[in-house]
Structure formats: C-alpha cells, structure tokens
C-alpha cells in the first residue's frame, strides 16, 4: 500500500516504577483490517491499549498515526487523533436510551444551546444502519433493556458515529453467548470494512482466528511476533502466547525464557 499504516507503534517502553511492563513493543494496524492483540494474563495487553488511548504515557518509543509521530498526552488527545476504545465494561449509562448514550458528552445542540434530539436520533440510526444492525427495536429504548450483545453493538456503533480511525475493542465477546458472539464478530468485520483500523483484544482463539487479518502476540511485555492470520495455525498462536516462540516464529530462546537481556 502506498499510504502509511493507520497506527504504528515503534519500540514502545512502559514501566511502572521498577516493573517493566512493555519493552520495545512494535505493532502495526492497517485501515480496513482487524488486528488481533493476544497474550496471556499479565502480558501487557491492557497497558498497551491504555498507552494508545492516552491513559498512560509511554516512556520510550513512538506512536505513529498515519505516518506522523504524535505524543499522546491524554484521552482527549487520543480521541482527537481518532482513537476510540470500547472497554469491556462498556461505559454505557443504563438509564439513558441508545441515542443519548451514543452522544454522551458530545451532544448536538441547536442555536439556543438546547439538545438537538432529532438530528442526534437520525445520526444514531444512520450509524446503526451502516453496520447493518438489525437487533435493536428502537433507538429510543433504554440501554437497561438491552442484551449484552446489543450493548456491545451500541458501544461499537458509537465509534462509527464519531468516525474514529482506530477502534480498540477490549474483550468484546467475553461475556456473550454463542449467537451473540457471532453477531458482534460480524459487526467487527463490518467496522473494518468501513476502513477503520480495528484492534481486537481477546482471549478467545476461535474469535481471533475467525475475524483477524493480522495477529500480534504479546509475551511478558514483548511483542513475540506479529503475523498474518493466513500464515499461522491456531496451535502456533497458542505456542506463541504460552512460550513466546513457535518454531522459527517469535522470540529467541534466551528472550523467551525471560532471562535478563
């Protein structure tokens, strides 16, 4: 491709006091693709996405957005750059309806500074329709009455509404049943098809193998490997997650044992 990757991480380091959480992590996320980020508990996945989202500042390395390095100083900064993180706990207010949640904190107002409900409702409908969402009865129903999958849908649709370039999904299917997982994965694909760079953080190998175009494996705070989905088997990915290496792939033997380098 002639253009730059939507997001590129180069040699990102992050430590909390004496604890090295991320060391020299590279990651590339292309627009129109689903990049899975996998790794065992404590591998540094959450820290990495928080660094991208501006919640943590990186100690060293570069965050390159569309070919331009940026210093991300806070969540607002990240939002300006088009990063939207959909957290596991979703961050929706139960007592508000779908439209109200999708526009929360960024309400459209009329000339008199009153809420412009009609245009918000229209835009929310358009966002849901663009993702071919058919699972919600009315955009004016309260989020409390939605199922887990529907809530996830609303949270993801929000990113379409704000035309985010990079959408990070943190374990979107963790709490869902089989059918709903299917629906959300469909949604993830459609989101990517709209030209968004989707980063999917997941524990579920089936999900990852099903939707990802590229898989980044974190092992003890290092990027063991970023591989194309079609080049690897599920077994190889699992080996990368658990041992940091699989055949020629991954870290060297010394690195993967966690020895000091």
């Amino acid at each position, binding site marked *: 491709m002639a253009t730059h990757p939507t997001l590129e991480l180069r040699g990102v380091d992050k430590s909390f006091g004496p604890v090295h959480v991320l060391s020299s992590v590279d990651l590339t996320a292309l627009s129109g693709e689903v990049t899975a980020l996998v790794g065992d508990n404590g591998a540094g996945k959450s820290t990495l996405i928080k660094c991208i989202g501006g919640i943590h500042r990186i100690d060293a390395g570069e965050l390159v957005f569309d070919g331009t390095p940026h210093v991300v100083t806070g969540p607002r900064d990240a939002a300006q750059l088009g990063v939207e993180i959909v957290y596991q706990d979703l*961050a929706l207010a139960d007592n508000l309806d779908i439209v109200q949640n999708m526009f*929360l904190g960024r309400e459209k107002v009329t000339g008199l*500074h009153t809420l412009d409900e009609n245009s918000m409702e229209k835009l929310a409908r358009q966002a849901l329709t663009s993702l071919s969402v058919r699972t919600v009865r009315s955009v004016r129903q309260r989020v409390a009455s939605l199922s887990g999958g529907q809530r996830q849908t609303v949270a993801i649709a929000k990113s379409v509404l704000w035309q985010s370039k990079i959408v990070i999904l943190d374990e979107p299917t963790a709490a869902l049943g089989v059918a709903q997982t299917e629906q959300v994965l469909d949604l993830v694909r459609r989101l990517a098809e709209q030209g968004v760079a989707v980063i999917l953080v997941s524990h579920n190998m089936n999900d990852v193998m099903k939707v990802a175009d590229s898989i980044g494996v974190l092992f003890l705070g290092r990027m063991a490997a970023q591989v194309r989905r079609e080049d690897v088997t599920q077994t190889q990915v699992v080996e990368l997650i658990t041992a940091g290496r699989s055949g020629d792939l991954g870290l060297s033997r010394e690195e993967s044992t966690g020895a000091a380098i």
Partner: protein
Amino acid sequence: MSAQTDHLVKPDSAEPVEGLGALSTYIRDYVGRVRGGELGSIPAMVGLIVITVVFAVVHQGFLSAYNIEALVIQAAPIIVMAMGLVFVLLLGEIDLSAGTTGGLCSAIMAVLMIRHGASWWFGLLIGLGVGVLIGLGIGWLRARIGVPSFVITLATFLAFQGVTLILIGGQGAVTLPAGSPIIKLENSFVPLWLGWVLWALFVIGYAAVKVNDALGRQRSGLSRPPFTVIAAKVVVLAALGAAFTYEMGINRNLSANAFFNNKAEGMPWVVVLLVILFAAWHFILSRTPYGRHLYAVGGNEEASRRAGIVVSRIRISVFAICSGMAAVSGVIAASLLQSVQSNAGAGNTLLLAVGAAVIGGTSLFGGHGRVIDAVLGGLVVAVIINGMSDLIQGANSAGYEWVVTGAVLLLAAGFDAVVRRARAS
C-alpha cells in the same frame, strides 16, 4: 445476520402516521414501556386520584374552594423543596439539611427586614444567595473532599437549626411586616381575569411545544406521536386547569358583603411561581446538555467521566440547586405562616419533601427522576396531611398524622426498590 436476530428496525415510513393504526401503535409502545418498568407518573397520579376520592367521600368539605386553596398553599413549600431534592436524588445523593437550610435562609431574610430595616427584595436576595452558597459548600465537601453527603448534611441539618435559633433569639419568632410582598405570595390572589389569561397562555404554550416537537420530528423523517394523542393531552390539561381556575374563582370569604369588599377569590400567587419554577427546571433537565449529563452521572459515573463530563462540577451544582430551592421553599413557608419561627424548617419538613419526590417517582438510587415527580408527590403528601387532619380529631391526631406520613414514605421507597429490581432483571 444470525438466526438469533430478535427484532427488525422498522422503517418509519412503513407505519401509519395518523389514524387508528398509529394510535394503536402508540398505545402498544406505551404499554411496552410501562411493562418494562418505566412507570413514569402513573403510580403518583393513581395514588393522588384514589386518596382524593377517599377523602372527598368521607369528608364533605374536602373539595370545597376553601380547602383546595388551603391544600395548594400547604403543598407549595413541600413541592418547591422536593423540586430541588430531585436534582440531588438524581445523582444518588441526599440533602438532609434542605429543611433547616430553608429555615435559616428565611430567618436571615426576616431578621434583615425586621431588625435591620432592609427592604423585602434585599432580604429575599440575601436569603436566596445564602442558600446557594450553602449548597456550593456542601457540594464542595462532597465532591472535592469526599465526605458522604449523608454525613455532611446531617451535620448541617443540626448546625443550621442552631444558627436559626441564635438568629431568631428568645422571642421564638420574627413576624413579617403586614402587607409585605413576601406575605402576599401565599395569602393574596391573582385577579380573576389574569387567572384566565394565565390559564390560556399555559394551555397554548403547552400545545405549541408539543406540536412543534412533533412537527420537528416529522421534518427530520422520524416517527412522531399521532396528533390525536397530543390533542387528548392538551384537552385533559386544559380541562384540569380550567376546573382549578374556576374553583379558585369562587369567593372563599363568607363575611364579604356589599359594604366590605374583602372577597377572597382567585388562585394564590404562589401557583404562578410553582408553574414558572416547574417549567424552568423541567426545561433544564430535559432539553439541555447539562440536564442530560445529570442523568448520565446518576446512571453511570464512570461512563460519564470517560465521556468527558466533569463529574465533580455536576455534583457541586446539584447541591447548589437543592439548597437554593430550599431557600425559596423557606421563604414560601415564611409567607404561609407570616412569620419565621425559631424552629423553621426543622421537624418533618425535609422528610415530607423527600417523601414527595419519591412518591412522585424519583428514585433514591439515582438516575431516575423528573421535576413533575416533585409536583405530583407534593400534592399527594399535602392531600394526606390535609385530609388526615380533618379526619382524625382528638388528642392523638398529630401522632396519627406522623405515623401515616411515615408509612406512605416507606411504601413509596419500597415501591421504588421493587421497580428498580424489576428494571434491572
């Protein structure tokens, strides 16, 4: 899409906009919402109708013009305080000191007027200003220092009672000057012609807002409620308003005759104040980003923070609104009694107002509540107090009144908890 797809989004154009079909769709949606736990004002309205009917049957003069006026002026301070409390309750907080704050503010006003010769508007301004400042202080302690609002306001509840006692001093009460505009608020009446003009403005205003909303939705290509429903709402409201205005037009002073034209007719001025306060707060809660953010913080604080809402500022603001409204309520109570007692705002003042908000449908758990709740709940509380005091005579009447009020509050809070659980499941 998978086979699990539950419902399809129906394009609006496929649904009839007007006529019987639209009406039945509207009613079906409404029933669906009610079943889903969004009861709105139904319980309060049913309760209000039931107890009104009961008292009207057992007590003859209950619906007389004289008693209706008494009811309204009794309800006014409760309703106003409850309006303020709705804001605090929306965030899941409580202000136990709203009653004594109101008492203190009215005492400051009265003392300025009587002992320092201040004009009524200056006293009023200072009283209300002190109310807002108190709220800012409570809010600051809650939001920045992190003291639970229950504890802060329990402390201020006690302290303000003391301050009022010190201000008023040994006399036990400060009597407001006769003929002061403060007294007129509760004890003087809107001329009949003006009453009807205000009624017409009110009905036309309501209809205009509803029709404008519906047309706006139609212009944007969204579904709108059928005009039959809007017309029905306007007619009901107009009829209720007309009945009230007519009844208040009846002379209530039986000693008035051809020589002494001291008729008591027309609605009390405080009704106009109530309508204005209701409209203003309702507008702010339902149509401004600030109002939206209040609900969001009450529903999910973390989500609001992530959405970029400054939660602490919202939190401070609700306490300021609550204490400010408590001050207004205190002034109305002073107007009713034509004086400020040394125990103003103490006793059950606050409990009645909290009860009013909760009976009206505001949740104690935050996130659910509207200004209309304060109005309907306040009327329910006033009807109970008024009806009971007529019904139960004798030495223990005050005791029974307290017991019944307590029972109603508990019932409403229990109802709130049950509805909340139904919503969650």
